[in-house]
């Protein structure tokens, strides 16, 4: 059993004739925000979905806090919360009702978790409105709150600020930034290089299903002798 939050070794996945991942390896440490960055179709979402037990790997292994996603999926699900890029809430529930529904799976008395979720969502009185009446930004904040309120050991966030306005995106980023601890990590994917640079302790650049560069944003910029992470991205995916 490794001490890593996430250990990915030789991960491969095909969808019919399309190779989504081929020999992908990386490691996420505890108390770390790890960014998975790459062009569309590079394999980011597939990696996160395998890590979340949604998809199975054709080859390779993924461990989350020592639990193998293939052989101990329920242990992995206990440790993670996954926020997909395109996610929604049950429209017939209020924001609070949705938080209560999710929290019920993680605690016998979910009151404390729900209150933390309400605080994280920061939707004011609108928390008692049906989620069908929420804007995209409000729904995203609710979903992020529902993901973090249970204090998962690993928060897997696929494009966490997708569709949010500047103010909402900034508030969400602050919540994510404060999340890691000795027992908690975050892995996220994003197309927003400024966001990645601001949030992530380390970044894995993924291209055509393989990790092509890993390091801190500063180290990567230095290594490729460019101005910023966006330039690194352009270099390695060229």
């Amino acid at each position, binding site marked *: 059993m490794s001490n890593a939050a996430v250990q990915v070794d030789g991960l491969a996945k095909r969808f019919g004739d399309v190779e989504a991942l081929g020999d992908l390896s990386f490691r996420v440490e505890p108390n770390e925000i790890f960014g998975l960055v790459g062009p569309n179709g590079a394999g980011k979402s597939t990696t996160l979905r395998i890590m979340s037990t*949604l998809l199975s790997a054709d080859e390779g292994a993924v461990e989350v806090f020592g639990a193998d996603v293939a052989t101990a999926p329920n242990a992995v699900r206990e440790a993670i919360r996954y926020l997909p890029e395109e996610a929604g809430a049950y429209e017939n529930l209020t924001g609070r009702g949705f938080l209560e529904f999710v929290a019920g*799976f993680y605690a016998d008395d979910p009151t404390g978790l729900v209150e933390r979720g309400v605080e994280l969502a920061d939707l004011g009185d609108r928390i008692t409105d049906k989620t069908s009446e929420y804007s995209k930004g409000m729904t995203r904040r609710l979903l992020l709150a529902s993901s973090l309120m249970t204090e998962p050991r690993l928060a897997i966030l696929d494009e966490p600020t997708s569709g949010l306005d500047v103010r909402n995106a900034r508030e969400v980023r602050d919540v994510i930034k404060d999340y890691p601890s000795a027992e908690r990590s975050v892995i996220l994917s994003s197309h927003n290089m400024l966001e990645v640079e601001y949030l992530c302790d380390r970044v894995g650049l993924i291209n055509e299903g393989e990790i092509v560069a890993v390091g801190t944003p500063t180290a990567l910029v230095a290594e490729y002798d460019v101005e910023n992470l966006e330039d690194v991205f352009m270099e390695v995916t060229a």
Partner: protein
Amino acid sequence: MSDFLRLVKKEARELLRPRYILPILFIPIVFVGMGQGFGGIDDQLDDEPQVGLVVNDSGQYADLLVETYEEQANVTYRESNVSANAAVDATRDSGGKTVVVIPDNFSERIAGGQQPGRVEVYSIVDSVGFGGVLSAGQGSTPLSTANEVIAANVTGATPAELNPVTSTDRTYVRGVRMDRPPSVLSEAVSTQFIFIPIAIVMVIIFSGQMVMNSMGIENENKTLETLLTMPVKRRTIVAAKLVGSAAVGLFAAGILAGSLWYYQTSLSFGDGGAGLPDAFALGGVDYALIGASVFLAVIAALAMALCLGIFAGDQQGAQVLVFPIAVLAGAPAAVSMFADVTTMALPFRAVMYAIPFTYPALAPKELMFGDSLLIAAGVLYQLVFAVAMVGLAVRLFNSDRVVTGDAGRLSDIFSSLQR
């Protein structure tokens, strides 16, 4: 609250939303409305017909005809030597629906013995509906009694001489004698063999539709991936979807079956076969077999729907994908209504027996009149089929397909259907 109950509650809450439940409730309302309409017509037909009489003949047979009408109808208008149009207007004003005109040669023709006495009957239909048409026709009913009364008077014959032939009916149903006419059987056929299969089909289709809706909602709201990464076993999610959808489906089907039953009894379809001999009565074991057959059919349909629902892109797609289940459930019910499946040619029988939804449709008929062993074997087959379908659903939920919606070689077909 356990994870299972929390998920069942969530399913039921999502499916009981007006957009899903109102279209289902609309049909029962129509049936109840129609039932009330037919019930009203029945009440109307039970009342004495309201008749106007124009009596232009003073002979004895005209008197007998008038006496009969006065006994069996409510004569709201009586006059002589007026035009038919005037009589119709006056009868309508007095609430009558039929005018009977007895011409002046009525008794003379009967007495002559060569020609029947002829009356003119004018029916007044101001309300063009079942009630209006049928109640207008009621005015002719006393004529058959008058025929017998006048015939007895003319000939001096006794009632036995007037109706010299009568019958005592015995019916052999698959070798078992029943001291009743076949019409009793037809009443049983109406209630047991038409109503029950239709009700069963409704249960299967509604439950299937509910679970399809459930998957459609998850796909449309994009909640499935979140749900699947929660610390809940996939088989618990599958079981909750099956139970939640079955509960709502049974609720909807129960309301619909109740309204259909009300509608059917309003049509006076008889006593439900109560006149059948004891040999055809259903016992406790029979009801248990019917119950088991219906239950397993619902479970199998739900599991099939859940498997198909995985490939539904949205709720519209889900509605289309429920079609194969509707066909599989509806075909045996339709066939068993109009034919005896057990006497069909072997290839057809084989096809029917291969469909698990055939057995609940056949069960009432076969348990009453035929082969209990066939239904018992069918229930066993249904059990195997239902377990296989639930197993398939759990397997699909444990696979990538629940996320990717990839139906493999069937992808093109599912995509084409949902376009």
